[in-house]
């Protein structure tokens, strides 16, 4: 964070700098980048050192190098799998073309490749699931939060339920969601896989609350002065919400959305692990069950990937927040 703002500060001022201030800025840059790099280096050293001391049933705990090696491996496996898939489709097309040459009236059936999902595929699945769950939660939480903020009655009615369900762990929801979805979502040709729906709804149930509460609070804190302006103008209910309430609540709302997305990501990994639903969580669980000498390194790669993606999601939300937030700074 500090580093990025520093860099932008520097680049903005660079053109009109003389030697002296250039030096000063490069020193600042060093300090801005130096501290995080130093922290990272210390962490890697500590990791390497501590890893050698830990003996597990699968061998020594992997150090940074072993993990980096597995990261490359995982990517290579992904590339290899993609090649195999491409080759499969090529063979299929060749066969079809060959047969069509002999029997032009033949209706070909094409099959899709059924290889195991790779690490990158699992990342993609997890990302889509978390975003779907998060969007669904926001679609419920924002309107409900607005109504709660505007009406004391609704707020009093909903608040006990919020307090009751907010602390519930995703693992407690999961069996219920699984059973209910299995019972209710029974279409012949489902648009989404059932496992996707289960993960998504579990994520929704857990990440609903921060957005809901923050939106409601944001709406109740609309300044009385602005409400007076709205009254003097005799704004209708809908216009009042759109022109006065929503913009007022946006900073709080986005704070809630950011927390929600963070929770959504954490919950999803746990849900995928427990339910064996496709995604990063399943990858971790499969590696754990697999128990090869490389499993620990591969799990560590997943852990780092989960962290990085969580971080990236948070940055994205922060950027979105900055775009719509009318308040100065963050």
């Amino acid at each position, binding site marked *: 964070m500090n580093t990025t703002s520093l860099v932008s500060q520097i680049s903005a001022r660079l053109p009109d700098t003389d030697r002296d201030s250039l030096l000063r800025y490069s020193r600042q840059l060093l300090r801005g980048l130096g501290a995080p790099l130093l922290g990272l280096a210390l962490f890697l050293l500590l990791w390497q050192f501590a890893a050698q001391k830990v003996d597990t049933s699968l061998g020594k705990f992997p150090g940074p190098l072993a993990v980096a090696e597995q990261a490359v491996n995982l990517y290579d496996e992904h590339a290899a799998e993609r090649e195999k898939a491409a080759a499969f489709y090529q063979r299929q097309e060749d066969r079809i073309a060959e047969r069509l040459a002999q029997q032009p009236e033949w209706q070909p059936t094409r099959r899709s490749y059924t290889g195991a999902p790779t690490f990158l595929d699992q990342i993609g699945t997890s990302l889509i699931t978390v975003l779907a769950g998060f969007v669904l939660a926001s679609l419920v939480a924002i309107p409900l939060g607005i109504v709660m903020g505007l009406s004391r009655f609704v707020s009093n009615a909903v608040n006990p339920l919020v307090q009751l369900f907010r602390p519930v762990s995703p693992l407690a929801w999961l069996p219920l969601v699984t059973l209910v979805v299995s019972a209710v979502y029974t279409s012949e040709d489902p648009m989404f896989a059932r496992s996707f729906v289960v993960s998504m709804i579990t994520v929704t149930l857990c990440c609903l609350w921060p957005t809901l509460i923050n939106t409601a609070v944001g709406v109740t804190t609309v300044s009385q*002065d602005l409400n007076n302006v709205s009254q*003097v103008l*005799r704004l209708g209910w809908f216009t009042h919400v759109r022109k006065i309430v929503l913009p007022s609540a946006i900073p709080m709302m986005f704070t809630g959305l950011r927390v929600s997305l963070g929770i959504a990501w954490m919950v999803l990994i746990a849900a995928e692990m427990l339910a064996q639903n496709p995604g990063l969580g399943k990858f971790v669980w499969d590696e754990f069950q697999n128990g090869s000498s490389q499993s620990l390194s591969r799990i560590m790669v997943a852990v780092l990937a989960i962290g990085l993606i969580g971080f990236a999601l948070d940055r994205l939300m922060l950027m979105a927040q900055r775009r719509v937030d009318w*308040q100065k700074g963050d």
Partner: protein
Amino acid sequence: MKHLLEISAVDMRFTTPKGTFEALKDVNLKISEGEFVSLIGHSGCGKSTVLNLVGGLLQASSGGIILDGKEVSEPGPERAIVFQNHSLLPWLTVWQNVELAVKTVFKGKKSRAEMREWIAHNLALVNMSHALDKRPDEISGGMKQRVGIARALAMQPRVLLMDEPFGALDALTRAHLQDTLMEIQRDLNNTVIMITHDVDEAVLLSDRIVMMTNGPSATVGEILPIDLPRPRDRLELADDAHYNHLRHEVLRFLYEKQRKVENIPAAEKKAAAKKKPDAEVSEAPTRRAVGSDL
């Protein structure tokens, strides 16, 4: 003579946890079209309550307010209010703030082009044409108050209600805005009710000064007609005997007849606690305003 606005026998009681509090008792006031009336009195005397009653933000416990032959029962743009802390929407630009008012009030009555012209006209009246695309946090306190005035004027109100409009501004900016307001009122002949703490401001701007007694159960104490010829010039008036006599009348009412009786330290502490956030917020921008506004 027909009056535009009549406040008759208004009582205002608030229910508080400690019981009923009677803020106003038997307030009577008649205001003619084009008249500039100031309400002056000590803090807590119910000046703002009177203004909010006329504005429709509060409902009188008994008695009533009649504007143009119709009883006031809710807020409306024909009684536009200029709030002390400007109350601009912070996420809208200067232009958009006025636009929101114009689009709401003149929906279906003016064409798009006419509305644009009307917004530009009102912002020009308060000399804000140079900062149309600025947001409230990018302009000084004085400028914000100008935009607040433009927004209120743009509603074409029958009565313009001003709640200590210049209270949070520094002296130079305040003087400048008072002059602007005098010019606008001379040209448009608005009917204005203004709350103020400032004796000079009241005498300079008003046709009549309504002096209120101390609360609880505050009411109109005396009404002082200000028969100084217009246009008024603050520099000439400074040495004018009649002006100074009128000033003295107000001061005498405030500091002899209606001396605050409650113990002073407690009252001051309360006032200070109430004022502080405003003062802090407006301090920096108003300082800047001295250079840019004058």
